[in-house]
């Protein structure tokens, strides 16, 4: 670790992993509720479990992004963090706000939560993924602004690199687009329309910038390939991400009551959204193949390559599957969407955060890389989580295809719940894959505590001997 203040990231990463475990526990509960509807009812109803599952994901990814920025930016800017104290204060505020919100979801009915948080003064609750009480949303804005200020001041007063500037652009975009969560028009069409300004422009817009810059940073570190080469790729990737992603928002406007031209704009531009992800895969593999040195942290390299592949599959391929309007006419809001959502979030954002944690955690704990045994355990967890996520996606895709046929395509369409019953086998298999994912995650957490021999590369041994 070159700069003392980088260690702030550790707090954020620990919280991220903790919340990740919570998210997956609720995922397993939810998966079971798909086939045993009254499991844990009335303590944890399905809608509450779903809210906790998705909200925890968003919150822990935000913790991960913030931690990543606090780790990466001082090193890129070649100076200490503008204010490590501010970063620590914001951490505790964000953690407290996040924990209280989740407890609120679990302990009181949603309507009561709205009442006690005075949602009526500025009503923003009740929208999917943006269920947080208004007061929590205000907290998020304060934390995000303080965070962007802290990171921005560090970057602007230090060395400016393409990586840190792309990251900063992504983070500013993240903060700005979140502001749309405060705008809740009465008109239901407009409401959905602007809701996507947060949801889509985050995950298919500015988050891609954050992802690309984090990936580029780790790849420079583990491969030693010229910064100039990596930066060039980064420019092209982000340009493509924005060209396809911004107008690609249109693929959410097909059936919500917006004008018909969105069918065309949405189909054409979103069909191109796989391109930046494909470029990221090419980029990652080429850079690793052209590496100038072997880094002892094999696990981090594995995560980096895994991110590129899984993001392309989950976000790119599975997104493309149902993005064209004539296809989406039948598939929107089915398990096909759930399949895409799972693999895209895991492949692009979960994995990129785990990549930077994998790279930086050992360094913050005073080693260049985790010990040999810890790395083996970590790589096992990589394969368990990744392969089980592939199966979750495949089972949900199977469920989705059957659902589309039975409910929307056949000559004698069935009702929603009658169709759901027919999908039971797929849901059971998905739950099985989910349990394997949880085991993988437990292994992942264990890998931080495993003791073993330090990894010494041949070249280091030669250098030490000489």
């Amino acid at each position, binding site marked *: 670790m070159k700069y003392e203040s980088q260690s702030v990231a550790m707090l954020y990463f620990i919280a991220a992993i903790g919340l990740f475990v919570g998210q997956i526990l609720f995922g397993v509960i939810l998966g079971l509720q798909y086939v045993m509807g009254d499991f844990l009812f009335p303590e944890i109803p399905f809608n509450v479990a779903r809210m906790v599952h998705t909200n925890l994901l968003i919150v822990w990814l935000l913790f991960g992004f913030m931690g990543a920025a606090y780790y990466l930016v001082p090193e890129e800017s070649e100076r200490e963090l503008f204010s490590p104290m501010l970063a620590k204060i914001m951490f505790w505020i964000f953690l407290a706000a996040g924990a209280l919100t989740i407890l609120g979801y679990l302990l009181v009915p949603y309507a009561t939560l709205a009442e006690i948080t005075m949602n009526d003064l500025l009503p923003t609750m009740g929208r999917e993924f943006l269920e947080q009480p208004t007061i929590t949303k205000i907290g998020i804005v304060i934390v995000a602004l303080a965070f962007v200020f802290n990171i921005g001041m560090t970057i602007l007063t230090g060395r400016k690199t393409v990586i840190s500037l792309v990251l900063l652009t992504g983070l500013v975009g993240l903060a700005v687009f979140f502001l749309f969560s405060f705008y809740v028009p009465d008109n239901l069409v407009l409401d959905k329309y602007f809701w996507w300004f947060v949801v889509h422009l985050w995950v298919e817009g500015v988050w891609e910038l954050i992802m690309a810059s984090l990936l580029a940073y780790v790849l420079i570190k583990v491969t030693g390939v010229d910064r100039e*080469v990596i930066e060039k790729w980064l420019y*092209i990737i982000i340009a*493509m991400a924005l*060209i396809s992603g911004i107008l690609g928002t249109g693929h959410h406007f097909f059936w919500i009551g917006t004008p018909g031209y969105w069918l065309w704009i949405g189909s054409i531009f979103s069909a*191109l959204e796989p391109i930046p992800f494909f470029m990221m895969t090419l980029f990652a593999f080429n850079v690793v193949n*052209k590496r100038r040195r072997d880094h002892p942290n094999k696990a981090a390299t594995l995560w980096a390559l895994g991110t590129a592949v899984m993001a392309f599959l989950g976000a790119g391929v599975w997104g493309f599957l149902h993005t064209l309007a004539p296809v989406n006419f039948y598939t929107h809001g089915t398990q096909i969407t759930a399949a895409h959502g799972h693999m895209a979030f895991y492949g692009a954002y979960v994995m990129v955060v785990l990549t930077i944690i994998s790279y930086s955690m050992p360094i913050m704990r005073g080693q260049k890389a985790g010990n040999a045994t810890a790395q083996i355990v970590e790589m096992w967890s990589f394969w368990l989580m990744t392969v089980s996520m592939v199966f979750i996606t495949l089972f949900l895709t199977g469920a989705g295809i059957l659902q589309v046929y039975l409910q929307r395509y056949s000559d004698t369409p069935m009702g929603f719940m009658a169709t759901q019953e027919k999908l039971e086998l797929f849901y059971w298999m998905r739950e099985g894959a989910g349990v394997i994912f949880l085991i993988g995650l437990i292994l992942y957490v264990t890998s931080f505590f495993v003791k073993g021999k330090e990894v010494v590369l041949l070249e280091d041994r030669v250098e030490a001997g000489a």
Partner: protein
Amino acid sequence: MNAAIINENTESSPDEPRLLPGDFAIWFFIFAELLVFGIAFLSYAVVRVQNVEMFNQYQLTLNRELGAANTLLLITASYFVVRAIHAIRLDDVKSCIKWLYASLGCGAGFLLLKSLEYYDKFSEGITLSTNTFYMFYLSLTMFHFLHVILGMIILFAVAIKAQRGGYSARDHIGIETGASYWHMVDLVWIILFPLVYIIR
């Protein structure tokens, strides 16, 4: 197609023959952009086949004279960019800068004429929702309009670097990169103009 090629390409001397002018990375971008426009043109063609009469009827409302003038402006801008590259190859930085600004002038002319055309259409109350023909006309030309702006930003950045003495006969890969992108913008218009304004 790999990082090594990008690397080698940037570092290769201008005397060596290269497969593509400019920085190799820009070609990823150019091909991706051409793919976007290609899909859009194909969609236009398919929908036109299904609505030939309607497309023919509303095509007549477009201002072909302005379109033709704009085509001339873009081709001229491309010619000026070529002159800029010739100039820098002779180490004539001054002329190079002059030609770059001349092409920027043509680009600005294009934007002005196009804005007049849009003003005309918008004052008639035409929007994306008027009909499928106008939907294609407006979205295709506006998307191209944005590319002209991006092309001009790139050329402007190149011109500024040239003014600061950043290019020479030996090292002018940046100008070639900007020029390649600009030619793409030009090429797209040369297909778009007949496709939307003329072909019946």
